[in-house]
């Protein structure tokens, strides 16, 4: 008898061999955000190993996958060289697809979206625009109010965006990837 379909699905989408994890916990021991996570990385790997729907749902609707910083401390030390950050990337995609989003994901997704909007429009990051757009997305207008003026004074904030010349290429890249319904959007 082989592993369940769920486990081999995970493997075929990510190349990460979930069953190789022998639950030593070294990833968790060194993860800087393990204590903030619903399930620390090794626990999350175990939930995936069971291959059951309820456990997969637990993972998708947890905050763990959103809090992971992709810092790769876990991968760097894992005796079995299991690429947990890569698995996290995939799990985030799935969580969005299945709309099982933990509340902690909201500000993080909002930030990413604002960031990408900026690139799409100008080809580069427009930090002022990013922060404003993020504030609209999260309705958190007070955040960062204190540092913005000093940033401006120290010459760290442009009032106007820098734009690249070939902005059409950005439209094309976004159009064919993240805005293309066929690709794996997160």
């Amino acid at each position, binding site marked *: 008898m082989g592993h369940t379909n769920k486990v081999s699905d995970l493997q075929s989408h990510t190349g990460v061999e979930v069953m190789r994890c022998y639950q030593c916990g070294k990833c968790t021991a060194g993860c800087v955000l393990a204590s903030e996570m619903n399930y620390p990385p090794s626990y999350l790997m175990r939930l995936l190993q069971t291959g059951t729907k309820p456990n997969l749902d637990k993972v998708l609707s947890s905050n763990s996958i959103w*809090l992971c910083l992709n810092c790769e401390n876990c991968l760097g030390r894992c005796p079995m060289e299991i690429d947990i950050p890569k698995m996290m990337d995939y799990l985030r995609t799935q969580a969005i697809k299945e709309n099982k989003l933990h509340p902690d994901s909201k500000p*993080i997704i909002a930030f*990413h979206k604002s960031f990408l909007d900026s690139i799409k429009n100008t080809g580069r990051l427009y930090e002022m625009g990013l922060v404003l757009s993020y504030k609209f997305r999260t309705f958190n207008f007070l955040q960062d109010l204190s*540092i913005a003026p000093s940033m401006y004074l120290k010459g760290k904030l442009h009032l106007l965006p820098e734009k690249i010349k070939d902005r059409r290429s950005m439209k094309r890249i976004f159009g064919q990837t993240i805005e293309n319904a066929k690709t794996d*959007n997160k």
Partner: protein
Amino acid sequence: MKIGFYPGCSLTGSSREYNESVVAVAKALDIELIEINDWNCCGATAAHAMNEELSLSLPARIMAMAEKQGLTEVVVPCAACYNRLKVTQHELEDDTKRSRVIDILKMPYQGSSRIINVLQLLEMYGAENIKAKITRPFAHKVACYYGCLLVRPHSILKFDRVEDPQSMDTMIKMVGGTTLDWAFKTECCGAGFSVSRTDLVAKLSGNILKDAADRGAEALIVACPMCQSNLDMRRGAINKTLETPSDIPVIYITQAIGLALGLSAQELGLKRHFVTVEL
């Protein structure tokens, strides 16, 4: 000596001083930096977290532009951009991914430019020159902070060792500084959570600062704008998590070297930091 240059978005905005110091030091060492024409953002964590093809296409366009310009070697000072470019180059060794990306870009891409970080640039093309041109040894006790993106994943970057890396320490020692053996060289600062989860950044960066402070560091030396801004601009939030607030400045490796070469605080952008730099 001419070399390709990809500044990346942070270096034109919130990390202007990094750009200023890279350019100033390069000039002092007779290295001519040739900026990639009409470069775009590498997509950073946002693209990577949201869509794989997007996260490959954005860096691929940058490298395609460099190739078009005939740049065989490109220095990327921002550790985050450096990481994205290197990882993309690695991922695009896969034929299917490469042809898909070329199709999206409508540009030829070979993956032939060599991507290096600023430490490699200094090591390879500056070391002798720097030694010869030191006018004011950087006689400070500092903690070199490498963060995640400069060293991990080792299998792709193959740069410094993952635990207790040494390249930056060697560089600082070369310009007359002393470096600390400390415990948080490669622990994450909170990275892209600066805006979305400032609380976590404050906590993680706080741990880093505390260890450096406990061991008597006069400054933290970094090579990543994201680390720098988390540790510097977020100092207010960080200090709220610490028992003893810290006023240790966080400076770029190029600023430290620039100082040793006798460049002025102004030229090196040292006035732009939130935490006052008095070195």
